[in-house]
């Protein structure tokens, strides 16, 4: 017997022993398979390809930090859109500030709040010169607001905004905000002479990064204004006219209510945020025919991944890859036709050799693991 053959035989023997060990550890009772697995595998749940070996818990923690950041910014935006006087959410600010020193979190700040170049309005430079840890609540709030307004195009570079941008500073606890980000319809374009919803006032704190209270004197050099493109063809009310977030909401609200989509404490909210900001594929909510199933699978992932660490393996999930290639997902004609994520790899092998009491006969006993197919084929 050659050494190569010996090695092959040894390998087969080891595989056989692994199977047997797996069985006798799992088949002692019908519910044994439900025991918590001690073995944890490195999984691929990347924000980017560099983080493909991030452990689930670490990934989840970082992601939730990012989500909290985004949620805060969203809350600010919501209030500004509805024209309410913004109230300071000091507790949230402090929470975020306590995390701001973490480099990884900062990277996520960049990724989420400062654009990746794909935003319709334009990416905004990260506030690299800012000292997150030493900023006051008001300063942090202002920065978030600035970013959101710039991403929404509320601060055109053209010095033709309406007169409301010279309002008096507000009280120390509330700050008037634009009632609604300006429509991109021709009537509302600043350079066409149309009126623009009220611009933000100057910040309440003198030391805070200021909004451009006067068009010629932006006081936040680290947050440059975004060039406004007056030639952008738009159709009022169409999907293309909306922000990415609004487009996603419109595309998904037939599946999940908007209030749930906006709640990052729900799997749906997490999936929405992932689609909106994290997903490298950045599917177009106006044209993509895979948006819904990508969202549903992401929701499924978050709904069945308690504490972000229960899945022992999630190859491909929540990456830029087509969702049809995510582990356990099968498709027909580009449509998801199956989700197969079962445990017990070697049950079939065991069932072939051992007596399984009839009362405990389950589908897991008859699973045909690929490793054991050659045994089944002989029958």
């Amino acid at each position, binding site marked *: 017997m050659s050494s190569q053959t010996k090695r092959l035989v040894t390998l087969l023997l080891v595989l056989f022993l692994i199977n047997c060990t797996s069985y006798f550890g799992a088949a002692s009772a019908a519910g044994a398979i439900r025991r918590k697995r001690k073995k944890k595998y490195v999984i691929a749940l990347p924000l980017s390809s560099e983080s493909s070996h991030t452990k689930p818990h670490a990934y989840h923690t970082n992601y939730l930090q990012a989500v909290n950041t985004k949620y805060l910014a969203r809350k600010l935006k919501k209030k500004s859109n509805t024209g309410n006087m913004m109230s300071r959410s000091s507790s949230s600010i402090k929470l975020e500030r306590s995390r701001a020193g973490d480099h990884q979190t900062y990277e996520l700040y960049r990724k989420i709040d400062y654009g990746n170049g794909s935003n319709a309005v334009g990416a905004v430079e990260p506030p690299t010169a800012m000292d997150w840890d030493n900023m006051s609540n008001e300063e942090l709030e202002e920065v978030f607001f600035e970013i959101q307004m710039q991403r929404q195009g509320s601060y055109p570079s053209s010095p033709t905004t309406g007169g409301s941008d010279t309002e008096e500073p507000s009280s120390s606890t509330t700050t008037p905000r634009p009632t609604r980000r300006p429509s991109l319809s021709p009537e509302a374009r600043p350079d066409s002479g149309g009126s623009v919803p009220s611009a933000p006032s100057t910040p309440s704190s003198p030391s805070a990064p200021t909004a451009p209270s006067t068009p010629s004197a932006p006081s936040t050099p680290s947050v440059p204004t975004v060039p406004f493109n007056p030639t952008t063809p738009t159709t009022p009310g169409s999907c293309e006219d909306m922000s990415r977030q609004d487009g996603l909401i419109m595309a998904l609200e037939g*599946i999940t209510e908007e209030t749930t989509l906006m709640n990052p404490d729900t799997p749906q909210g997490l999936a929405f945020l992932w689609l909106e900001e994290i997903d490298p594929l950045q599917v177009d909510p106006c044209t993509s025919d895979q948006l819904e199933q990508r969202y*549903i699978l992401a*929701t*499924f992932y978050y709904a069945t991944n*308690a504490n972000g660490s229960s899945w022992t393996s999630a190859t491909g999930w929540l990456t830029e890859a087509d969702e049809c290639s995510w582990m356990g997902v099968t498709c027909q004609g580009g449509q*998801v036709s199956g989700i197969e994520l079962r445990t017990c790899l070697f049950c079939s092998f065991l069932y072939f050799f051992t007596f399984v009491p009839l009362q405990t006969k*389950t589908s897991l006993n008859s699973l045909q693991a690929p490793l054991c197919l050659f045994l089944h084929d002989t029958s």
Partner: protein
Amino acid sequence: MTAENNLDGSLPLELSFLSSLSVLDLPGNSLKGDLVPMPATLTFVDLEMNRMRGAPFDALAGLRNLEIVHLSTNGFTGIIPSDIGEWSALKELWFADNRFQGATIPSEIGKLENLKTLFLYNAQIGGSIPSEIGNMDLEEFLANNNQLSKEIPPEFYNNKGLTLLRLDSNSLSGTISSLIGNLVDLTDVFLSNNTLSGTLPVTLLRLTSLGKFVSTTILPI
């Protein structure tokens, strides 16, 4: 390759919007909560050995394309609705080891002419075995550890392809019919822990494939 995982949480309602979903294969995880409504395209659902609860048949109502339904070893409750007869394509129905307290086997189950395996052991199911079960072509019928009562209907022995039969640990009465001799493919028969009376039929001698026969009834001689 088949995935190894440990899903922990509840199935989201959004799954019902996967309009082409045919296979939902998630056994051996730690899923909790209710089974959510599924799209009409579903043919295969396997949620065995999880921790789910609620009434699964409500969620699966109206899914006429179902072929495989494996729901065993969970905490499911509720009843077995008569609508189950609409699952005309069903081949395997396993909902054993659950808590269907007070549930009975509906007579409409006899409409499932394609059903081959019916597993409902240890599921707290009562009532009697409907005679309509004889309209089926079962190969495996495991209904042990329940509260089934009354006699085994003679029509039951019309399932000529039956190989596995477990009715032990119930409250069945009456005798074992000589018609059991028609089930020549039987390999395992468990009838103990019932209130069956009489003697074993001589026709058992026809069952040449029989490997195990467990009963507390007495032999004829």
